[in-house]
């Protein structure tokens, strides 16, 4: 067989209350097998309480070559951060 099984991206929730986080990828014939393989490869030491597997082909990613124009609009808007505003030291709880 020279055809690889489809690729899935693997996300783990390390404990309840935290978000799922990308950890790597896995090949599997179908979604159920992807979960089992992700369990075997990425959670041998109790790394998680929940797994997501997502077909890699389904992920739509931004283009790094366009990162400048994509993220540029936020660059000059420092007034979106609280540290932009000068408040006298005597003023508390602000």
């Amino acid at each position, binding site marked *: 067989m020279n055809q*690889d*099984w489809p690729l899935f991206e693997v996300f783990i929730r390390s404990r309840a209350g935290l978000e799922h986080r990308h950890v790597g990828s896995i090949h599997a*014939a179908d979604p159920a097998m992807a979960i089992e393989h992700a369990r075997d*490869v990425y959670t041998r*030491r109790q790394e998680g309480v929940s797994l997501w597997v997502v077909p890699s082909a389904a992920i739509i990613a931004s283009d790094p070559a366009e990162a400048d124009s994509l993220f540029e609009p936020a660059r000059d808007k420092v007034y979106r951060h609280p540290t932009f505003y000068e408040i006298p030291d005597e003023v508390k709880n602000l």
Partner: protein
Amino acid sequence: MYTQALDSQPQSPPPDSAAEDALAARFQARVDAEDKIEPKDWMPEAYRQTLIRQISQHAHSEIVGMLPEGNWITRAPSLRRKAVLIAKVQDEGGHGMYLYSAAETLGVSRAQLVGQLLSGAAKYSSIFNYPTLTWADVGAIGWLVDGAAIMNQIPICRCSYGPYARAMVRICKEESFHQRQGFEIMLTLARGSAAQRAMAQDALNRWWWPSIMMFGPSDADSRHTAQSMRWKIKRFSNDELRQKFIDITVPQAQFLGLTIPDPQLRLDEASGHYAIGPIDWSEFHAVLKGHGPCNHERLEARRAAHAAGAWVREAAAAHAAKLAARAAA
């Protein structure tokens, strides 16, 4: 486990256009600034090829590395040792999977990579072409071979290529138990009967020099160190890492009451480093070329496993196709 500084094929410099030059300059500036390179970023073709080769060799080494130790699972001396050894061999398989995934982000398929291993075209760490003759070899591999691998791998956690660096962080975290369980086996044997001590010494005698050679050719003969360092794929030279390994391992051998098989080994008071006798590089190159004691056996085992698993892969694919058809109907 297990990377080895393998001597790699020569690269031709990329054909340059002005646009490519500008991209290359920007790439190098990012690398110099310790920025990470991610899969979809522009990268020089030679960087991509170097990484594919290095990461896949590393992955192959993990997979082939399961064989010498797997050889002792059924004969481990206790249930505890057996459970530990199974967990370690499973880890090596997992490490191979992390690394194949990292290599695939560079635009090569898993089937291609596995094909290169099975055809004999790809290299893997030459250390796995030595046999595991006694139980003490399992201890010596954990202590020395994993120890050398950790020394090699820790700097790769800071590699400029993100997916490789992240895989290495995960691997290094898991690797530490491998070395400790190996040392524990050696310690148990060293504190055991005269026959057990002799077995431990014999394993050290056979694994010491191959472990020293895992760091690859000496700097004078290593053709690609400079380029890999510029790209921040590599952080220390082969000889620097080898020296670090020797300096930490010699006192461990002394603690075990075992003798390093090198009559010229001595502590150089001035530098504080251990000096070793000459390395027999002809052996290293012979093993790398396929003339080690187990090269043939290792590849045959991988080919047989791949062939024996063919029906499972086909059945799983057929089952998946049937499920998909049913869902569509």
